[in-house]
């Protein structure tokens, strides 16, 4: 129950923020916002002991029962980790942002988006129902879009926002298709139920397709190669956003998805190869590209891409354990997943700290370009210390938490060589090699971050203002993260036991309670420990590469490197825009008549053609009610009035003829025993006529219709064809009653709805939803009328674009 509420609290707070901000337009608004994730974090943390004992919490709120879509929230070890990250890092980021953003920014808007994101992200990790998960998933993309484009007057921001939106949302749609396929297979939208029943469907073709589509969603969200290109451009967002969305939480949603669906797809060769190879290549590509960046934030973006690849590849390796069920042999492969979860936590701590450090440098020095920075160590000692902790942890050095997870990563990569599944053979040897090379680059760029910025020569003449240490408030959040980085190194098994162990149980449900799932993490295994030797190798080669950087930088300018995925994306976008413009211009002529001609021609062809082709004419006049003489008169009056509207010269006559039609319809309603309708029709007709007349007061008189003869003939043909088809169709429908009328049900209205007027009980009770929406439509129309008249376009509105 609490979990369900927890998802909605950020949304509620987001609704409140604009009001509070209006009342108190200062940065103090941040303290109110800070309260939200902090409370959630504390309450969530109070669940840790019981979840660590294997407890799970399920709460279902019925929603669209008939379609199997219910608001089910599920708290287990896996969602716990993510929930803690979202609320924990969220707290720190908001604390940081209070000091980071200036008072002149649109703080209200910023915090609304941020809270919206927080709620959506909590929704993603706590939802059990795939449809609900999808909705929240896309909501994170949307709030990310809004946050990247926060400084929307900058062209780059808008470009980055659009790019991230296009890539992640198209991945999301693919994922939706995958979800629907899973539902088709198993008959349930619930992830837990899918996990329980998927075993019998693994040979289905849909299964493979669903797997690939779900992976597409995960890869786009988590910026895996070749979809990683949106992440560097997303760095246009304010730094707190980058720290929160684009390193700690949103980009990890893809990881979460892979972890969550490992019990569904894990153990399959395709899943194993797709996840681990894509992850491994992303790891390499990201770290390789990070080295060449000169903008600190771009560097961190590529490093995030790379680290996400690392975690992803570990999940891929870990899925091998699910092939063939539990055995003493297979359990060893679960170590990769354990390392992945551990690194997930570690990455959030050190990367969050580094982002905040970069934000501080940017804030104080006015630039993030490492060519202009240097020698800041003596000016910003605290910032330097945090940067040192963060980057050394990222490089995998002791005594920081990155060292532990990096060693476990190497170990998993080494173990996988022994896997004799999926025709691994000698290919397995390639895994640790790539991993090692990527780690060398990781080491190099980690050193660049800290040493190029803080050591070397200070260049005050290349900076806009004198640099000094950041205010204390800005240092609190990164310091806490820095302390965590060190703290986890010394007490890793706290995290392992309380947080990672229940998550392992969630990823490997068949292995529940098995031995050897949760290793004892220790920093020292002796000198003969292979991962340690790999780490030492990384340090030696990394230092050499770092020192010789300027000699091999030329690698990045070799031709194939220039041919980039970004170019492909831009070209694709441009071509699509061009093509659709041409296509749209071709049929969107701007003439209302043309559009109506399309519609009516389509109607004639499809409905008329359908009638002719199927030959389903069947007229049956036997059931007709008798006609009295005055009804004949009424019908002929209407036909006469209708046809003469076409020929009258004055608009006044036309409107009166229209009223004749309206009142005649009202008379028919009386004949047809519909008193409510007759009453309504009479009044509405009166008001409508009055409205017409009121408008005529201002509008010009009818001119003669200037149209060529052929146009008129075409119009007449279309009109007669449509009229004829409608008549024939209606007569045919009356001739063939395929179903019994459902209206008998409503005749019990007094017992069912407590009213004797059947029509009104249908309106107010049986089909109240229609009526409610109708009222809303009416209201919107009224507002539309009001705004059309009252709000005049302001000439020469200011143009804020393209600054």
């Amino acid at each position, binding site marked *: 129950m609490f979990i369900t509420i927890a998802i909605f609290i950020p949304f509620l707070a987001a609704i409140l923020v604009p009001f509070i901000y209006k009342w108190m337009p200062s940065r103090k608004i941040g303290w109110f916002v800070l309260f939200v994730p902090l409370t959630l974090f504390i309450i969530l943390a109070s669940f840790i002991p019981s979840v660590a004992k294997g407890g799970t919490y399920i709460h279902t709120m019925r929603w669209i029962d008939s379609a199997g879509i219910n608001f089910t929230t599920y708290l287990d070890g896996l969602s716990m980790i993510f929930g803690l990250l979202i609320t924990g890092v969220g707290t720190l980021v908001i604390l940081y942002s209070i000091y980071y953003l200036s008072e002149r920014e649109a703080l209200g808007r910023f915090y609304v988006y941020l809270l919206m994101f927080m709620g959506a992200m909590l929704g993603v990790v706590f939802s059990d129902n795939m449809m609900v998960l999808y909705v929240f998933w896309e909501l994170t993309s949307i709030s990310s879009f809004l946050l990247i484009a926060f400084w929307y007057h900058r062209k780059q921001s808008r470009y980055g926002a659009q790019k991230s939106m296009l890539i992640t949302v198209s991945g999301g749609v693919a994922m939706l298709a995958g979800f629907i396929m899973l539902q088709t297979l198993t008959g349930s939208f619930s992830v837990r139920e899918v996990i329980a029943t998927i075993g019998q469907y693994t040979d289905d073709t849909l299964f493979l397709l669903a797997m690939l589509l779900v992976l597409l969603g995960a890869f786009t969200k988590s910026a895996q190669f070749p979809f990683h290109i949106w992440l560097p451009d997303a760095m246009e967002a304010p730094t707190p956003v980058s720290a929160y969305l684009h390193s700690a939480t949103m980009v990890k949603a893809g990881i979460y998805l892979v972890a969550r669906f490992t019990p569904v797809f894990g153990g399959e060769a395709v899943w194993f190869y797709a996840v681990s190879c894509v992850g491994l290549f992303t790891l390499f590509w990201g770290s390789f590209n990070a080295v060449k960046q000169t903008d600190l934030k771009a560097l961190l973006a590529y490093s995030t891409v790379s680290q996400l690849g690392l975690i992803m590849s570990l999940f891929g390796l870990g899925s091998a354990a699910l092939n063939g069920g539990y055995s003493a042999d297979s359990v060893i492969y679960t170590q990769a997943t354990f390392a992945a979860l551990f690194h997930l936590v570690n990455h959030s701590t050190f990367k969050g700290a580094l982002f905040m450090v970069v934000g501080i440098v940017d804030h104080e020095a006015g630039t993030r370009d490492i060519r202009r920075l240097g020698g800041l160590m003596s000016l910003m000692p605290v910032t330097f210390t945090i940067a040192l902790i963060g980057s050394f942890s990222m490089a995998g050095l002791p005594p920081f938490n990155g060292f532990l997870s990096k060693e476990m990563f190497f170990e998993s990569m080494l173990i996988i060589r022994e896997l004799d599944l999926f025709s691994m053979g000698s290919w397995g040897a390639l895994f640790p090699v790539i991993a090692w090379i990527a780690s060398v680059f990781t080491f190099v760029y980690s050193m660049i971050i800290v040493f190029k910025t803080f050591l070397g020569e200070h260049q005050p003449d290349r900076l806009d203002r004198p640099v000094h240490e950041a205010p204390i408030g800005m240092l609190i959040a990164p310091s806490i993260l820095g302390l965590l980085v060190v703290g986890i190194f010394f007490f890793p098994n706290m995290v392992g036991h309380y947080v990672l162990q229940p998550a392992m149980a969630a990823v490997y449900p068949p292995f529940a309670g098995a031995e050897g799932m949760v290793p004892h993490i220790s920093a020292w295994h002796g000198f003969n420990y292979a991962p340690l030797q790999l780490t030492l190798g990384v340090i030696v080669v990394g230092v050499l590469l770092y020192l010789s950087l300027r000699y091999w930088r030329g690698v990045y300018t070799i031709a194939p490197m220039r041919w980039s995925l970004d170019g492909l994306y831009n070209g694709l976008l441009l071509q699509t825009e061009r093509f659709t413009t041409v296509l749209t211009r071709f049929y969107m002529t701007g003439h209302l008549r043309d559009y109506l001609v399309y519609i009516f021609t389509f109607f004639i062809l499809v409905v008329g053609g359908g009638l002719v082709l199927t030959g389903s004419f069947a007229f049956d006049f036997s059931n007709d009610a008798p006609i009295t003489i005055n009804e004949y008169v009424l019908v002929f009056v209407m036909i006469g009035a209708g046809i003469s509207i076409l020929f009258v010269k004055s608009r006044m006559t036309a409107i009166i003829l229209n009223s004749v039609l309206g009142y005649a319809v009202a008379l028919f309603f009386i004949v047809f025993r519909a008193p409510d309708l007759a*009453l309504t029709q009479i*009044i509405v007709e009166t008001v409508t006529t009055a409205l017409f007349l009121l*408008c005529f007061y201002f509008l010009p008189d009818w001119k003669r219709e200037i149209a060529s003869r052929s146009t008129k003939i075409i119009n007449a043909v279309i009109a007669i064809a449509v009229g004829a088809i409608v008549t024939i169709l209606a007569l045919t429908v009356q001739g063939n009653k395929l179903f019994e009328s459902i209206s008998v049900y409503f005749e019990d209205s007094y017992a069912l709805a*407590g009213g*004797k007027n059947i029509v009104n009980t249908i309106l107010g009770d049986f089909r*109240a939803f229609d009526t409610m929406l109708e*009222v809303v439509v009416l*209201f919107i129309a009224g507002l539309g009328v009001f705004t059309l*008249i*009252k709000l005049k376009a302001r000439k020469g509105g200011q143009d804020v674009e393209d600054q």
Partner: protein
Amino acid sequence: MKINDVILRTVTKIVVFIILTFGVELFLAGHHNPGGGFIGGLVLSSAFVLLYLVHDIETVQKGIPWDYKKIAALGVFLAVGTGVGSVLFGAEFLTQTASHFDLPVFGSTELSTILLFEAGVALTVVGVVVTIILSISEDV
């Protein structure tokens, strides 16, 4: 829109009240007899429109200083609110209930949440219709 017509004015004074009464009557009758929120609302709004036609807008606005947009908004709120209200009581969206009450003057009367819903409908109709007419006629 200023029409100086003594007969019309005099007649209107009485007729408006008859129309208003009729509107309320129709609205309340809706449960068992022809009538209901729409018709009631339309009749009520026609009474208001008549008032605005006969007297000019400023005069009426002084006597009845309502913002009809707000009335319409209130109506939508009531209509949607009864729907949400039933969810709060654990029933499906827009579930209506009815039961009998012993009221001091009216005796045993049947009160139903449909009445609230219909009131929302009627208010919206009144608000929207008068808003439309007023907006057009004010904008000369």
